[in-house]
């Protein structure tokens, strides 16, 4: 069977090769993992088990359990000042990944350009292509600490795009954007009438400041779809649960696809998520405090080793320059010589070349060992 043209337009994931190299070796400390090293808080896992014991194994409403949607609406109002009606502005999805996919298919027409800042999480451009849209790369720069700016958008031709998708706190760079830094982006978006897809999955993982959602800026709510979920903050990646927040007509459009392709997000995970929102704030705060200490440890060690690295203040990544400049060669040699896996930045698109994504979602003991090995390798 011949794969469809839209599938052929999407190259295989750039991290695949590295995954295979790392899997071959023994005694590897991987700093290449894009998920928490914690398990989900026990209270959330226990709620999932309890729901199974009570036989709660049927579908839920397409949009997600009503009590979960209410808990989500309350949570985002309290944490991010986002006001959404749980009945018709919240869609519970199978991770943010499904949310992004249905949003693209629901809100992007064939041939529409969608601006995708680079480097970025690897799914955005493929999601645009699967919706028959055209991804428009918008390279961000280290000089801007990989933040999105009005100038970068203008230079890249985003004025002609129909939409913009971005993620701050950012994977792979760890970059964040404050309210005053988001304002010019919002201005550009309003001027050129773009739809915004804001992936805020790392919103809880900010250090030294609180996250601002672009949807809270003037004139932005009506043109923005906000994505968030439970994978990162609650260490629930494998439970596959996220949500999209958007005005009623956009939510209805996304739900049109979701109800046919997914029917409903995993029921067990929805039970866990309700409990996570109700009782797991302390567990999240503890994980965030731990990430922050490791972040400081890694940044300090890199600084002492003479590796250039801007001060990433979000997610659980830092994005240093690869010593010698060739990130792929550095990463391969480091893996071979010292058994430490990091991901070359170009796997995340233009602007990532010459950098390494280093995840500190790894136990402090292993992280220290990995830093020692990198130092020995230099």
């Amino acid at each position, binding site marked *: 069977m011949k794969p469809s043209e839209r599938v052929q337009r999407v190259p295989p*994931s750039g*991290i695949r090769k*590295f*995954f295979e190299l*790392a*899997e071959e070796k023994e005694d*590897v400390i*991987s700093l*290449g*993992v*894009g*998920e928490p*090293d914690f398990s989900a808080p026990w209270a959330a896992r226990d709620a999932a088990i309890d729901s199974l014991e009570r036989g709660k194994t049927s579908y839920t409403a397409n949009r997600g359990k009503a009590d979960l949607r209410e808990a989500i609406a309350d949570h985002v109002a309290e944490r991010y000042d986002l006001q959404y009606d749980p009945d018709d502005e919240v869609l519970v999805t199978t991770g943010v990944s499904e949310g992004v996919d249905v949003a693209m298919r629901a809100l992007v027409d064939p041939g529409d350009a969608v601006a995708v800042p680079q480097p970025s*999480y*690897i*799914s955005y451009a493929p999601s645009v292509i699967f919706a028959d849209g055209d991804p428009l790369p918008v390279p961000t720069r280290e000089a801007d600490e990989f933040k999105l700016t009005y100038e970068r958008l203008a230079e890249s031709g985003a004025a002609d795009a129909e939409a913009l998708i971005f993620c701050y706190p950012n*994977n792979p760079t760890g970059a964040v954007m404050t309210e005053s830094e988001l304002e010019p982006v919002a201005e550009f978006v309003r001027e050129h009438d773009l739809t915004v897809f804001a992936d805020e999955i790392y919103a809880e993982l900010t250090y030294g400041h609180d996250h601002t959602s672009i949807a809270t800026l003037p004139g932005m709510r009506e043109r923005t779809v906000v994505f968030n979920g439970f994978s990162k903050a609650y260490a629930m990646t494998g439970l596959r649960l996220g949500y999209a927040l958007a005005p009623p007509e956009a939510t209805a459009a996304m739900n049109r696809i979701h109800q046919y392709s997914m029917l409903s997000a995993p029921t067990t995970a929805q039970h866990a998520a309700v409990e996570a929102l109700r009782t797991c704030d302390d567990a999240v705060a503890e994980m965030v*405090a731990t990430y922050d*200490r*490791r972040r*400081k*440890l890694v940044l*300090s*060690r890199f600084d002492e080793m003479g590796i250039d690295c801007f001060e990433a203040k979000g997610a659980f990544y830092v994005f240093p320059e690869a010593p010698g400049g060739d990130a792929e060669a550095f990463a391969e040699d480091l893996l071979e010589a010292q058994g430490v*896996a990091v*991901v070359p930045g170009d796997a995340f698109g233009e602007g990532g070349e010459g950098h390494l994504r280093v995840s500190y979602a790894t*136990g*402090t003991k292993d992280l*220290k060992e990995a830093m020692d090995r990198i130092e020995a390798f230099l």
Partner: protein
Amino acid sequence: MTAKRELLDLLLENARYSTEDLARMTDLSEEEVVSTIETLESEGIIRGYQAVVDWHRVKEEHIRAEVELNVTLDRETGYDDIAERLGRFPEVTTLQLVSGDYDFHLEVEGDSLQEVSNFISEKVAPTPEITQTVTHYVMETYKDRGIEFEDGHGDDRLSISP
């Protein structure tokens, strides 16, 4: 969070973190780490540093007993007086006044069952104010001071993921 609290958290996690690493993980300089810990110690906030030992893996006998004590007080004798007397015995490793069905909770440790039981029957029980003792010998430890004793399940995450 204050520097003191931050350092307490880190030392509770691992009291053997080096000064350098403690400084790296906080916004403190090495000098500040040293002086803050000295303050914590001199103020009596940090009372000591100990290893958490899995005695099953040490090839010698080690017995731990949890003891519940009931006492009666009189005008001359308060809880503190009884605690002071009991606390002097090196065999008593933990001594706490607790709420509930009994008054004191003791942990008693020794090299043999004989030693621990003799200690309780000869030194603790005969104390005049003590009206009742209930001794529970620890049979298996699963978790001690926040540290789990089972072998970890390992990291089953994919080695590289997006």
